[in-house]
């Protein structure tokens, strides 16, 4: 395995017991300072427009729904040394990760980096989170000199892993995760390298998608390259080199200014998770101690659980993806996102923990682990703000770290190969703040432009029919301000091509036994995630006999029972064969709440009932709100009920023995 470590050491400095992530290269400090302020502003704006143009080009050509509909595209420019300088991004996970992939090309191919070449990479130890995250990187030359790099990264659903969809619960080692390419040339002299493209296409179950996704990245890079070369003509090569570095230096300074606002001290958060992979009932956790001194923040993940025996792990780029998702989305939202942030934030990942696993381990379910890492850091930011009394408008309870997916594989409604899923979880609930409720069905952590796409777009995309897509009732953390409601879907496989059997598999099963979305300030955590499949009962039969259909997940159990179907909760079980018309459902917990639910304005509770977001039972039991026969709030009865609940709480509560002794 030592050969593996040797290859991957570009990611960071290995110190006893730890990995410290690689910082940006050192440059002559006078270089960024030489940039004049007016030209810098002209350059910064033009560069951003160029990146946006490249990103949109790619989004329009790409096939994978995560690209075309959901905006999951990371498009960025790097210095000639491989440090991230500026990004136009629809996804925060991959912000700095690609930097290490570029540095590995620089290290291992330094005499062989040629103009008009582009490189492909999907190795999670170098960048991205798992094999599905695929990047195409392009060196930019001007007058024969390497001046920058561009990179497009997106998620492609089919990677030739042990099961379709690339995130199989059966994955137990690297070699189950799909075909991985550390860094290979897919464009040489401006033309696609046909033998490599063919090899990639023939290694996966859906050859067309990977080919078109790759071409979309090549197209995006071509567009961006043309623009960066024009900028070099307009501003001069030395200016471009210096200005890219100034972007990095500036971000570091702005980040340090923000960090300085927090009180010095040590802060701690631990994020629990379950990750069932068939009979595996353990609880894992990610924990982080934040040490803040002056304008430097250290995030030390010592104490984090050891690796999961199967796929619920992350490599350093995945971990850092999660960390930056929280930092960029919740703290550095107004600072250009680049490698400069890595100077202001020191990240220490213990060797061999669940977010820094050895290279031979499976990381196919890393997006969930990265999400949990993001949630852990988000929780820490809340602590820093609450303790320091600053940036109050940004305090908000955690968001659901991950949702479940059903992957459908076989052939689509026109008989073409198909292996993919719908991304409804993009519309998850967001956390409540001390000022207002969380946004309902709004976003996921990593996606500033989260987009769950239309049902009709998904039904045209694959052999799928929805019976319902709804905001889930009672799905949020209950509090004085409630979390945002999340989404639920009920679907069937519908009219698949006849030649191939259709198989179905659940992806991502965390959050079924424990809530991973705690509340803040005395609020409830968000409810659990849920995936289920009904065997033996066909929707088509039900329709033929004139019955109603199930539209929401809470109707499924009853629906199954009435038709002698088996109501099966499938969490992280392997793929299984399914005939068309069998119902499967998914729902995810929403955002965490803020504050004691007994302090919620009873009128707001009534409105939530009216808007079908809250059941009257929960309103009575948790919020203590009593409604009169006309549906309006009975103020007196509510007050009485709330007093009762407070008394019940007192009677339930107890002081732990050691505290009692101290009294």
């Amino acid at each position, binding site marked *: 395995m030592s050969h593996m470590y040797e290859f991957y050491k570009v990611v960071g400095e290995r110190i006893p017991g730890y990995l410290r992530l690689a910082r940006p290269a050192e440059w002559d400090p006078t270089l960024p300072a030489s940039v004049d302020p007016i030209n810098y502003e002209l350059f910064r704006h033009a560069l951003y427009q160029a990146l946006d143009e490249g990103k949109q080009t790619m989004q329009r050509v790409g096939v994978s729904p995560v690209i075309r509909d959901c905006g999951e595209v990371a498009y960025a420019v790097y210095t000639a040394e491989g440090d991230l300088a500026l990004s136009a991004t629809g996804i925060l996970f991959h912000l700095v990760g690609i930097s290490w992939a570029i540095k590995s090309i620089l290290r291992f191919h330094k005499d062989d980096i040629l103009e008009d070449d582009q490189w492909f990479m999907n190795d999670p130890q170098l960048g991205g989170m798992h094999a599905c995250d695929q990047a195409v990187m392009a060196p930019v030359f001007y007058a024969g000199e390497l001046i920058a790099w561009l990179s497009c990264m997106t998620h492609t659903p089919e990677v030739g892993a042990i099961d379709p969809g690339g995130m199989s619960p059966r994955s137990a080692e690297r070699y189950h995760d799909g075909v991985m390419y550390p860094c290979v040339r897919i464009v040489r002299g401006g033309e696609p390298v046909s033998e490599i493209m063919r090899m990639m296409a023939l290694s996966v179950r859906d050859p067309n998608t990977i080919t078109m996704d790759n071409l979309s990245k090549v197209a995006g890079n071509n567009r961006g390259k043309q623009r960066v070369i024009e900028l070099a003509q307009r501003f001069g090569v030395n200016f471009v080199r210096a200005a890219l570095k100034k972007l990095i230096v500036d971000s570091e300074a702005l980040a340090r200014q923000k960090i300085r606002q927090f009180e010095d001290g040590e802060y701690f958060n631990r994020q629990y998770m379950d990750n069932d992979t068939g009979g595996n009932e353990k609880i894992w956790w990610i924990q982080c101690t934040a040490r803040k001194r002056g304008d430097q923040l250290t995030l030390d993940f010592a104490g984090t659980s050891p690796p999961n025996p199967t796929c619920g792990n992350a490599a350093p780029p995945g971990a850092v993806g999660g960390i930056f998702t929280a930092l960029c989305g919740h703290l550095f*939202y107004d600072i250009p996102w680049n490698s400069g942030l890595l100077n202001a934030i020191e990240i220490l990942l213990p060797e061999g923990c669940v977010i820094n696993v050895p290279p031979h381990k499976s990381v196919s379910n890393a997006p969930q682990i990265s999400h949990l890492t993001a949630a852990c850091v988000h929780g820490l930011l809340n602590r820093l703000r609450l303790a320091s009394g600053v940036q109050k408008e940004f305090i908000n309870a955690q968001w659901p770290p991950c949702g479940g997916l059903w992957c459908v594989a076989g052939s689509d409604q026109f008989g073409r190969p198909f292996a993919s899923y719908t991304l409804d979880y993009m519309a998850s609930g967001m956390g409540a703040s001390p000022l207002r409720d969380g946004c309902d069905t709004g976003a996921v952590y990593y996606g500033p432009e989260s987009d769950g796409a239309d049902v009709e*777009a998904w039904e*045209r995309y694959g052999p799928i029919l929805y019976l319902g897509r709804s905001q889930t009732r009672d799905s949020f953390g209950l509090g004085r301000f409630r979390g945002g409601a999340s989404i639920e879907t009920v679907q069937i496989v519908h009219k698949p091509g006849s030649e191939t059997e259709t198989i179905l598999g659940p992806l991502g099963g965390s959050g079924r036994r424990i809530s991973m979305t705690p509340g803040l300030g005395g609020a409830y955590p968000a409810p659990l995630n849920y995936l289920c499949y009904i065997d033996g009962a066909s929707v088509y039969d039900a329709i033929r006999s004139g019955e109603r259909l199930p539209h929401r997940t809470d109707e499924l159990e009853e629906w199954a029972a009435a038709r002698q179907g088996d109501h099966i909760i499938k969490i992280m079980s392997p793929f299984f064969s399914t005939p068309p018309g069998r119902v499967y459902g998914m729902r995810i917990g929403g955002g965490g709440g803020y504050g004691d639910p007994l302090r919620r304005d009873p009128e707001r509770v009534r409105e939530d009932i009216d808007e079908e977001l809250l059941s009257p039972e929960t309103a009575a039991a948790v919020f203590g709100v009593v409604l009169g026969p006309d549906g309006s709030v009975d103020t007196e009865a509510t007050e009485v009920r709330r007093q009762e609940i407070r008394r019940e709480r007192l009677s339930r509560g107890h002081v732990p023995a050691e505290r009692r002794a101290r009294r």
Partner: protein
Amino acid sequence: MKALIGVDTGGTFTDAVVITGDGRLYTGKHPTTRGDLVRGILGAIEVAADRMGTRLPELLAAADVTIGTTAGINTLITRTGARVGFITTMGFEDTLLIGRGKLRIAGLDEEACRAMPLTHKPEPLVPRSMTRGVEERIDMFGDVVMPMREDDVRQAVRYLIGRGAEVLVISFLWSFVNDAHERRAAQIARELAADIPVLLSCEVCPQQNEYPRGMTCVINGYIYPNMRDFFGRAQEQFGAAGYDGRLLTMTNDGGVRQWNMVHPVYTINSGPVGGVVAGVELARRYGLPNVVCTDVGGTSFDVAVLRGGQYTSDRIRTDPPVLDRYHVLSPMIDVVSIGAAGGTMAWVDPLTRTLRVGPQSAGSDPGPVCYGRGGTRATVTDANLVLGRLNPANFLGGRMSLDVDAARRALAELGAQIGLDAIGVAEGMIRIVDHAMADLLIKNMVMRGYSPEEFVCFAYGGGGPAHAAAYARLAGFRKVVSLHLAPVWSALGVSAADLLDVHTSSRPLPWPVSVAQYNQTFADLRDRALTAAGLQGVSDGLLLEFSLEMKYARTEHEVTLKGLPEQVSDPAVLDGLRRQFELKYTEVYGKGTVVPGAPVEVSAFRVESRHLRGRAPFAPEPLGPADAGHALMSTRPVYFTGAWHEAGIYAMERLTPGNVVPGPAIIEAAYSTIVVPPDAKALLDGLGNVEITW
């Protein structure tokens, strides 16, 4: 030939343009009469009639009147529309609330989107409690999976009426492929509620994607009673004033239609569209197929691209268009904007020592520092003033004087933070703004696969001419034209627009389709277009264009093939269309993006019917001598690229066609100032516009 009258009701003034049968043009202006817009509209037309030496009834008796109005968008923005009841497929009642998640950031700018925890969805136009589901289901092939339960429809209608619905909107999944359920549901609803409008998505917006489709229909229902009311009253008052035709209205796609023949949501954004249509007309008159319209106002810089003598509605963004804060599916002239204009404010980031301009704007109140109305932060207008480009004594034709010293002080204060003086900051700001405008222009041309070299740039709006030469040159244009009719530009577009109608058959099909299917679909659409035109009194002179929207399977972004044959006999022709698709695809997305053999689908068949109306009277005058000495009023120092230049100051109204003004020069007109840089020259052309070349 009838006179064409176009009216644009703005916030302050209502403008009217009359184009007579023999091609002369008259204008009229009247203060907008809030509460009774029609009075101001008739007032503006009457002013024009006076100038023509005729009376209002005589003018109206032989005219076609087109009204562009902001009544619809105002209803939406002020949330004063109808109480809408929404009926949809059971299981999908939350569609408009979920808004696929992305509703959260609809209409927000980049910076606002990045501050994720602060983003929130807008208040719903239809609360969940006014939405009811009906058990029914049709799939993407149009096959009925679940028959409709008619009892559900009855219950839903009764429930929503009981809750005070004033309009019912019905939108079921895949109704644009099979409308049977929607039409039957409407029948039931009308039986139960005869006096309430029942609006169907298969009629209003027969296109894929249920959230923006539903939202389009809901906004349509929301403004429906107000718009009916407005046009009903207008029709009556115009009748009383002597007009016996049907009033026409401007649509979002740049055409006009009889007001009762168009769903109100498609007229909602007609304001900026009028200006673009006028641009198309003028481009035709110049014989220019390719033009970019640029409009510099007080707060934003707007760009629209016209190619082949037509505006483009090919969107370059990957999202559906946004109205207020909701996604919709409306054909719209794609006008893109950035916050870079006269009122845009500058600021310094002390930590990174950078000068930034915008996007915040001082607007017109307090406005720039030099207005002396309490503004304290330096704006682009202040920078233009300090650099000598604006005349402090002759701003807006002398109706306002500007405080140069105050502007200089504000600029010097900013400069002190980064080691620049007032002039250095002012020049920096102008360069930043000019470049930002040029970057936007370049991106919009190139992303559509066009090259600026093949285009001419039109500039209008109060601030356009001051920056046009700079941004057009930076963006790679060869020429920019500053337009003299700017103050009534939109009304001119409204009067000159063609009668336009689009009929679509949306149904996802693998390509190639059969010859029979191709011919039948286009024949049906042709019949629909002819029927609709007949209802608007058009029987001949109708131009039909047949087009297809195609895409690679599983991708989301269509390429439109235009100018297709209506009927084909040889299947080889249809195979050939695949090659045409690939060529167009390469043009838009670049070399190497075509995938040989990858499955292609057709998303929609489309017929556009166009009835050409009168043309705007841009009759060129012959060019006279080049010498512009008679219009030279004085000289003053003006700052260009690092040095002061003694620039000639010319009076626009004294220039005659053919006059050439050498740079550096400033041409002062009543509402705008044209800047001619040192190595450029300006020509007053035969149409009275100033052409700047370099």
